Every structure is written in structure tokens, then in C-alpha cells.
């Protein structure tokens, strides 16, 4: 499929992401923050789609927007909103924040000025059609071991969570 109005959509989605990100850290109501985060994640998924990475986009929507964020909301909603609204927010760590922001900014500038040589000159050939299949072969071929280790780790985490949550099994 030929791309249509790519720059327009890129800037639109980036703008949404930025606004969403700012809302996440400025809203006092945690539910609003969580919803802003979902907007950010969805815009991010759309950018993945534009980058011909549909599988990543789909997984982003299912796992982050549809799964994790719903659990987030779940927890937040069961917490007393009124009280958390009144509480002082943890935004007094100016020093740490400034250091992190400067470091990240420096990284960005370095990549932007010098880093062009890291990336290939030309865009990669469009591989949309068998992109997902490629990921599958990579995951279950070359990176099989890492993949299995990750799933084992998750299994341990699940069992740990069950043990911690249930007093009596």
C-alpha cells in the first residue's frame, strides 16, 4: 500500500502523544492520568503502523491499551479518589528530574547531530506483507532461548503474585 500524507499523520500522532504525555504528569486525578496514558499508547501504536510494524502495533493495543491499562484503571478506581486528589503530589524531586531530562536531551542531540551514520542511508524496503511472519521466525528460531527465558520469568512472576495475593491456596 502506498503511504498517504505521511508527514501529516506523523506530526498529528506525535502531537497527540506529546499532549497525552504532558497530561499524564499534570493531571491530579489519577483516572484522568491513566486515560491520557492510554491515548498516548494508542497514538504510539498508530506510529508503529506507519513504520510498517503492524504486529508491534497490534500487540501494543492488546497488551498495553487493552490489558495493562485496564488493570491500572481497575486499581486506581478502587482507591479513594477524593483523598488522592487532596494529597500532595510527588513532584518535589527537582534535582533528579533535571539530571534525567538533561541526560536524555543530551542523548537526543547527540543522536540527531552525529547519529545519522548509525542508521542506513536509505529507507528499508517495504516488508509489510510478511513482516509478522518474519517476527515469528525470528522469535521461534534465532531467539528461541531468550523467548523461553522471558516466558519462564513471567511464569515465576505469576506464581509469585498468586502466592502473595492468596492467603490460603
Amino acid at each position, binding site marked *: 500500500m502506498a503511504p*498517504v500524507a505521511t508527514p501529516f499523520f506523523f506530526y498529528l500522532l506525535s502531537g497527540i502523544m506529546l499532549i497525552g504525555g504532558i497530561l499524564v504528569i499534570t493531571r491530579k486525578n489519577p483516572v484522568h492520568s491513566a486515560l491520557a496514558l492510554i491515548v498516548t499508547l494508542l497514538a504510539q501504536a498508530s506510529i508503529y503502523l506507519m513504520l510498517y510494524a503492524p504486529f508491534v502495533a497490534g500487540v501494543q493495543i492488546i497488551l498495553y491499551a487493552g490489558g495493562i491499562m*485496564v488493570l491500572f484503571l481497575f486499581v486506581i478506581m478502587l482507591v479513594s479518589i477524593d483523598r488522592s486528589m487532596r494529597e500532595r503530589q510527588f513532584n518535589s524531586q527537582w534535582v533528579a528530574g533535571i539530571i534525567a531530562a538533561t541526560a536524555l536531551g543530551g542523548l537526543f542531540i547527540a543522536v540527531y547531530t552525529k547519529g545519522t551514520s548509525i542508521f542506513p542511508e536509505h529507507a528499508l524496503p517495504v516488508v509489510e506483507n510478511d513482516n509478522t511472519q518474519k517476527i*515469528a521466525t525470528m522469535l521461534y528460531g534465532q531467539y528461541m532461548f531468550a523467548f523461553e527465558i522471558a516466558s519462564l520469568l513471567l511464569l515465576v512472576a505469576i506464581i509469585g503474585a498468586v502466592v502473595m495475593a492468596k492467603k490460603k491456596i
Partner: protein
Amino acid sequence: MGRIILYIQSYLSSDQTPGAAGNMFWVLVYIMLVFGGLSVAVIAMNWLERKILAHMQVRLGPMRVGPHGLLQPIADALKLLLKEDIMPAEADGVIFWVAPFVVVLAAFTVFVVVPFGPTHAITDMNIGILFMLGVSSLSVLGIVMAGWASNSHYPLIGALRSSAQMVSYEVAMGLAVVSVVLMTSLNATGTGTLSMIGIVQAQQSQGVWFIFKFFPLGLIGFFIFAVAMVAETNRAPFDLAEAESELTAGFHTEYSGFRWSLFFLAEYSAMIAVSSIAVTLWLGGWLRPFPNALSGSTWDFMFSFFPAAAFLFLAAITFFNVVRMPKHPLFRIQTIGLAGFGVVLGLIGLVLLVPAVRMRVQDIFWFSAKVAAFMYLYIWYRGTFPRYRFDQLMRMGWKVLLPMGLGVLILTAGVALLQQNLWHP
């Protein structure tokens, strides 16, 4: 001008979906057609549900607005649009306002990848089925938002129930879907597909609907999905989120008027959406019955008359009922209206006889017919089953469907592996 026409015409000779071909004009046309058709389907479904349910319950259902209540959904829609839109004073305004739109958006966006025919889809995505599951899971967000923003106990409990329910059943649903994706990989290259069109084509090339593949594995997978999809859409007997005897109306208790109708619209389009997934994955999508056993141009020709025959049959029933209408002058308008409806059905039937239309519309007809069968099942469930309790629902999801799904997945993988390696080395 000429270029535009050329641009429009260029698509007609392609064998791709408009989205895949990148033809914006036809994409727009298809979007309009799909969403228009969806709205009509929801309206028709509303009437049908009330009528069918009524007849199951030894009553007549709507009879007053229009002949046999045919105009009832329209009257209801008007009523809902004109109703006052109430927002509770303590509600969280923005979220309360946005929630129904999120639900509708999620329910409608899913239809972007639903294949009504090999070329009749808005687009064919590489990750079609993943996209469908992902986007339809976003409707949970809308429900949770609605329940929380209402700032009231019943909606909150309803929202919690429904999100817990949807998140749990999605797991079993996903496992059943993966087993189908595994089945699609039984070809020469050994790679499967997530594309909705690709899945139907795989069934076509393997010469079997996946419900019958590796009997009974396909059937069990289908069964898991068929149960999970009822739970996904919060319908009886899994309608705990809006169990009116317990939670009045669940997450949309505080909604009224237009915004309530959006929830209604979303619920019905979600039903159609999950049914389309089931049809695509297990029941051969747009394929007509017995494409292999009864193949050949003669059979193709015979089956191509089905759509027209169906509509003409409906028209015949309508005319039969026109004759049975009371002869009293008070019923004149109703009789004429019903006759008019019959004429419209008959005309559609006649149009479907035209060879050019006949061949093109077939796929859509078979797809819709299969989806309609699911819709009937939904109504039937509602008429027969009491409601599950929440712990029973969760037990069923996690302790019955999930292990079953895992078992089916492992067995399918094993059988597929054997088949790949032993019988077709």
C-alpha cells in the same frame, strides 16, 4: 476529471481489497457501505430480537408502530434522540461524555478488517485477527470509564464485573483463535497468517472449514470461542454487567437518551463483530456451503440463485401476511405499508437475479447469512438461559475454557506437526 474516473475504474479490475490496493475513493465508499449496512443491521436486529423473543415467550412483541411493528426501531431511535440527556451532578463530566463514544468507536473500528468477500473488505491487514481482538478489547475501557464516571455504586460494580469478565474471557478466546492460526500454516511454505482474508483462503485451499478440521479439535476450539464471545459481548447468560435484577442496568444505569443509545448500538455491533470473527475463522467466511463437494460451474450457477431466492421467499411471506391482515379500514395504511415492504423485498430479490449483481453479491450474502445464524443464537440464549453468577462465570472462564483452550492449542500444534512431517514430508 478523466483521471479521476480512471482512478476509480482502475480498482474494479484488481483482485484486492480497496485498502490493500490503496484506492482512497473505494475505501471511502466501502467505509460508508459497511457502516451504513451495520447501522441498518443493528436496527433490523433490534426489531428481530424483540419479535423473535416475543414469539418464544408466547406474546406478539411490537405490533403498533407500522405493520407488525416494523417501524418500532425507528420510533425508538427518534424517542432516544429527543430524550433529555441527563448527567448526574457528581459525575466526572468529560469521561462521562467520552465513554459511550469510546465504546462505539471500538465496536465500529473492528469492521475495518471484516472480510465480506475476497475483495469486499475495507482493507486486508496483515494482522487482521490481532487487530480485531485488540480493538474490540478497547471497548472495556469505555465501559470502565462509563462505570467510574457515573460516580454511583451500581455502575461501578457493573463496570468492574464487565471488565473482569471481558479480560478473563479474552484469554480463552485468544487461545481458540491461535489454534486456528496454527491451522492456516498447513501449506507448502509452512507459514500461517493472521489476515482475515488469508484465513478464509486457507480454508478454501485446504478444502475444509476449520470447524471440521482435525475433528473434534476444530469443533472444540469453535465451542470455546462461541462461549467466550457471548461473555465478551455481555449478553445472556453472561449479562452480569447489566443484570437488571441485580444492578439495575450495570455500567449504563446513569445514561439516558442519545448516549444510552450509543451503548446499545455498540453492544449490537460488537455482537455482529464477534460473530464475524467466528464465521471467518471457523465457518469459512464468505465461502458458500460445500464449495468442494458440490463444485463445478453448474453448482456455482445453482448456488448463485440463493440470495435472490432468500429475498423472494421473504417477500412471499410478507405478501402472505398482507393477505392475512384484518380487512378493517383502520388497518388500511398498515396493510399498504406491509405490501410496500414486501414489494421492496421482492425488488431486491429481482435485482439479485441480474447476473452481474448475482455473481458479485454472493459472498456477502453467505457471510451475512452465517452471521445472522449467530445473531439468532444470541436471541435464543437470551430466551432460554438464566443468568450465571459471577463466581460461576469466572470459574467457567478460568477453570473450564482456559484449560480446554490450552489443550486444544497443544493438540492442534501436535497434530499439525505430525501432518506436516509425516504425511507430507
